[in-house]
């Protein structure tokens, strides 16, 4: 049965292939190359001519009827073909996951190439040509930027900056080492008359060598993530692949230019080296400038949320194009732009924009990469190859040797400078994981035709790509697991860990200063200080210095809040409870009454803030992201479950002592064994006292407070009816509530545990702060055994669809009701 169910999707996929093929094939005119998809081989080509001529029933010169059915293929040809190719490649990707075990053992790139091979075989058998779309300009202008942007945007910044020296060392020096080494060795091999390749001169060899030393460990990174390899290795592999794309492209252009020169002298070499540095540093500078400009722009995009993601893309692409214009390293430009931009922009934009940006970047990058690999497979079969056993085998051999040698030598040199040195297993993983990929192929394919042996180069490149991707890509997983390379123990930190590690970093930085040494700790400290003092003020919308401790704390608190919401089947919206709290305070201190409406609106704003922060914080602390998929939030769920039990325990153990405020509160997650009631109120005093309620409300997380549910006013936008809450002061009431609530735990438990926490019922009374998104869904009033089922959180649903009207609340600065 399982087999049948997995066969069905495959059949569907194949049938859609066939349909697409017929569609494209039938519609096509005979002249242009068609993007044929797979088609049943039996279909002859005679169907074509039938559709080409629009039916003209009457040949009268002066009267021609309106054609009922016309076909104008050339008009849509290009977009149509592109769309079909992309769709086909995407179907292939769907198809892989039909049998999911495949993707564990065989990396996705292998599968893509295989599908490409199949399609190429089919096309070849009917003597079709693949579309000539992969030209140099198409590749460099349209396909490469998304791939690079994808890698750069999802690079974990903190580990990257801690290892930036190593990364740059491996990518720049390593690539140079590989290119020059392999180039010279191949040149030596070329001198052997038996191979018949004597006409390849040194420049061309170097050019070829630089192409094949671009490492693209896409598949390897996926394996690394799956086995939770230690972070150092991961980040060095990731960073190396990204930066050596830049180096390779620069070398490629350099050697390309040099290859055309008849004679190379020392001045050229010197200029080449100089140009290399200029290009690299210029690219970085460009990227920085654009990154800052983009961050600055997003400071003002509050009112135009819908096009916020556009700025990110446009600025990065602009950086890329301008760099191409000036012939400096566009890859470095876009990488630096993304790295700089990411940090500031993600603080300025709304969550939705943030999600959109991530999704779109991932999508574009994946599509681009998929297309290139797919195309590789097709081209393998359909082009004329020039196969030269000796050259190709030597290429593969030298590439492997030089890479391994390079890694070992470079590691020996840089290990003394690293806090965590690489051991031999790491080095092996790094060198064996050096697969070649998309960029290599594209660079080879777009070699200028002035190179005589272009076909040989293409063949050799394809050979080495297929060799590394298939053999190394498939075998690296078992080898890594066998060798027991160091694993990481990254997990979501607790507050303790965060605080203590921060303390330790400060200590170490201090002692380093004491000893007169510097390392990345002190540099990091200095940079963060500079950052907080100057840069953030300029680039971030409202100046909100946020330490990572606070961010993590908020995040954890909110998660607990969500959990509490889960457990306690809720009807009570938090706003009334907060209001009730304030009401209670009001009853004790009469000066609060005039501020009531103010507080109510603050609450909604708080929900916004928290939801925004919750999402954002989650993303910020999730540094270990997957190269192939978007970060997932399943970890948050674990914590929720764990906290859940502790909260339930504390709920039962709780005792109510009345409403004095022992200390300032804002502590959602009920501490074990502690009393529930303490200080919700001091804050309300503050609200009135200082003129900056925004600050207070934003910072606080209100202590969950049970609220008698007897009269639940509908939380309408008017917020007028807060009177019924007047009577809710007595602790006796509260206690009753809690006990009653306890009993309601059980029925609600099942449903809560099964549903998604974020889409759950609105804030329940035990948490005064929830998120609006939570608030909008239906409360489980029916599960309450108490009196009147409290009404739903009504104001939110109307606003749900649009992000607009609620957005002002996301900005902490204005809390006035009229800003809504």
């Amino acid at each position, binding site marked *: 049965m399982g087999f049948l169910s997995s066969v069905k999707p495959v059949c569907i996929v194949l049938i859609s292939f066939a349909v697409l093929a017929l569609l494209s094939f039938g519609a096509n005119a005979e002249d242009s190359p068609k993007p044929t998809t797979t088609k049943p081989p039996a279909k002859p080509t005679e169907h074509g001519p039938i559709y080409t001529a629009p039916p003209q029933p009457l040949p009268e010169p002066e009267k021609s009827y309106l054609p009922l059915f016309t076909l104008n293929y050339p008009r849509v040809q290009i977009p149509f073909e592109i769309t079909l190719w992309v769709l086909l490649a995407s179907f292939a990707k769907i198809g892989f996951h039909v049998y999911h075990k495949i993707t564990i053992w065989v990396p996705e790139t292998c599968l893509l190439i295989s599908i490409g091979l199949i399609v190429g075989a089919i096309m070849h058998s009917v003597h079709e040509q693949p579309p000539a779309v992969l030209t140099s300009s198409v590749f460099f202008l349209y396909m490469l930027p998304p791939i690079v942007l994808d890698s750069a945007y999802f690079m974990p910044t903190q580990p990257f900056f801690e290892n930036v020296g190593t990364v740059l060392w491996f990518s720049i020096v390593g690539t140079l080492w590989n290119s020059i080494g392999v180039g010279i060795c191949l040149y030596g091999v070329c001198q052997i008359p038996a191979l018949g390749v004597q006409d390849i001169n040194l420049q061309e060899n170097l050019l070829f060598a630089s192409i094949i030393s671009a490492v693209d460990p896409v598949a390897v990174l996926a394996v690394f993530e799956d086995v939770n390899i230690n972070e150092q290795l991961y980040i060095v592999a990731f960073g190396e692949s990204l930066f050596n794309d830049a180096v390779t492209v620069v070398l490629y252009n350099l050697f390309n230019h040099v290859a055309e020169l008849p004679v190379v002298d020392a001045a050229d070499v010197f200029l080449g080296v100089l140009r290399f540095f200029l290009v690299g540093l210029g690219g970085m500078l460009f990227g920085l400038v654009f990154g800052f400009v983009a961050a600055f722009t997003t400071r003002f995009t509050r009112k135009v949320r819908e096009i916020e993601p556009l700025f990110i893309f446009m600025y990065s692409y602009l950086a890329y194009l301008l760099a191409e214009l000036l012939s400096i390293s566009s890859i470095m430009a876009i990488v630096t732009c993304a790295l700089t931009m990411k940090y500031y922009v993600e603080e300025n934009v709304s969550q939705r924009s943030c999600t959109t940006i991530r999704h779109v970047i991932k999508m574009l990058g994946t599509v681009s990469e998929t297309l290139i690999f797919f195309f590789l497979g097709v081209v393998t079969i359909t082009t004329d190859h020039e196969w030269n056993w000796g050259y190709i085998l030597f290429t593969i051999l030298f590439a492997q040797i030089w890479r391994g040698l390079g890694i070992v030598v470079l590691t020996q040199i840089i290990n003394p400078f690293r806090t965590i040195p690489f051991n031999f297993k790491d080095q092996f993983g790094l060198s064996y994981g050096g697969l070649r990929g998309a960029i290599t192929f594209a660079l080879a394919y777009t070699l200028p035709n002035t190179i005589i042996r272009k076909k040989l180069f293409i063949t050799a490149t394809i050979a080495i790509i297929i060799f590394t991707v298939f053999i190394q890509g498939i075998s690296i997983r078992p080898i890594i697991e066998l060798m027991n390379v160091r694993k990481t123990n990254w997990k979501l930190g607790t507050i303790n860990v965060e*605080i203590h590690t921060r303390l*330790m970093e400060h200590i*170490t930085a*201090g002692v380093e*200063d004491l*000893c007169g040494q510097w390392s990345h700790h002190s540099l990091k400290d200095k940079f963060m200080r500079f950052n907080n003092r100057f840069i953030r003020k300029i680039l971030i919308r409202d100046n909100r210095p946020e330490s990572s401790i*606070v961010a993590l704390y908020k995040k954890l*608190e909110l998660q607990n809040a969500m959990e509490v919401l889960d457990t306690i089947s809720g009807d009570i919206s938090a706003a009334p409870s907060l209001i009730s709290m304030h009401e209670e305070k009001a009853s004790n201190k009469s000066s609060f009454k005039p501020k009531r409406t103010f507080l109510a609106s603050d609450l909604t704003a708080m929900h916004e803030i928290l939801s925004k922060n919750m999402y954002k914080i989650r993303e910020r602390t999730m540094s270990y992201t997957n190269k192939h998929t978007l970060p997932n939030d399943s970890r948050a769920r674990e914590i929720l479950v764990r906290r859940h039990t502790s909260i339930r325990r504390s709920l039962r153990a709780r005792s109510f002592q009345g409403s004095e405020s022992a200390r300032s509160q804002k*502590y959602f997650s009920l501490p074990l064994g502690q009393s529930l009631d303490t200080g919700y109120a001091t804050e309300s005093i503050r609200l009135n006292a200082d003129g900056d309620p925004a600050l207070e409300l934003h910072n606080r997380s209100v202590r969950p407070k049970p609220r008698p549910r007897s009269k639940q006013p509908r939380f309408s936008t008017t917020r007028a009816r807060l009177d019924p809450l007047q009577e809710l002061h007595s602790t006796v009431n509260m206690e009753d509530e809690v006990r009653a609530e306890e009993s309601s735990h059980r029925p609600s438990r099942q449903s809560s545990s099964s549903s998604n926490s974020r889409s759950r019922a609105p804030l329940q009374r035990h948490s005064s702060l929830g998120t609006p998104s939570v608030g909008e869904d239906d409360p489980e009033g029916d599960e309450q055994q108490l009196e009147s089922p409290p009404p739903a959180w009504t104001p939110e649903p109307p606003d749900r669809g649009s992000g607009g009207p609620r957005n002002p609340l996301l900005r902490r600065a204005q809390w006035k009701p009229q800003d809504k």
Partner: protein
Amino acid sequence: MGSTSSTLSKIPNAEELSQETGFTSAHLARLFERFEALDKDKKGYLSPQDFEAIKELALNPICDRIIGAFFSSGQEMLDFSSFVRILAHFRPIDNNRPKEPNSPDPINSRINKLKFAFQLYDQDKDGKISRNELLQVLRAMLEKQVTEEQLESIADRTIQEADLDRDDAISFEEFRKSLEKVNIDHKMSIRFLR
């Protein structure tokens, strides 16, 4: 850098120090030079003012605690051997050291590094980090970024997470346990001291 041997001869008990702390003689020589550079008045010992004169250290949020760690038990004079002994905590852990069952842990073992960090919290030396002590450290580290309430909430949460025996304070065992997954060597080592 000067000749190592001449510097070494100025250091009293260089051999013992090297044995005890695990520093090589080159390191000891370098540290001695640093010691003398810091000791501007050439007193032969260091005082807290000498530490405070270091600019970068003064910018550190917990600089007074760090200084306090060196000048424990209220003394005002830090001689070279104490200086070196404390700095020895920051040597990277030697994984290759053979374990002798009867010898005490070397100064730079993981436990001792943790103890060093712990003592920075625990100013009154009662073996526990109370809520107040935690608050003070947090206040120092977070400076003006958060309000008092947030600080208190964070402190509450920290204690709640780590406190297993419900005494509202973090003992050394609890401290150690909460950090068991963290690579202390990475965080509390200074590379050059290897």
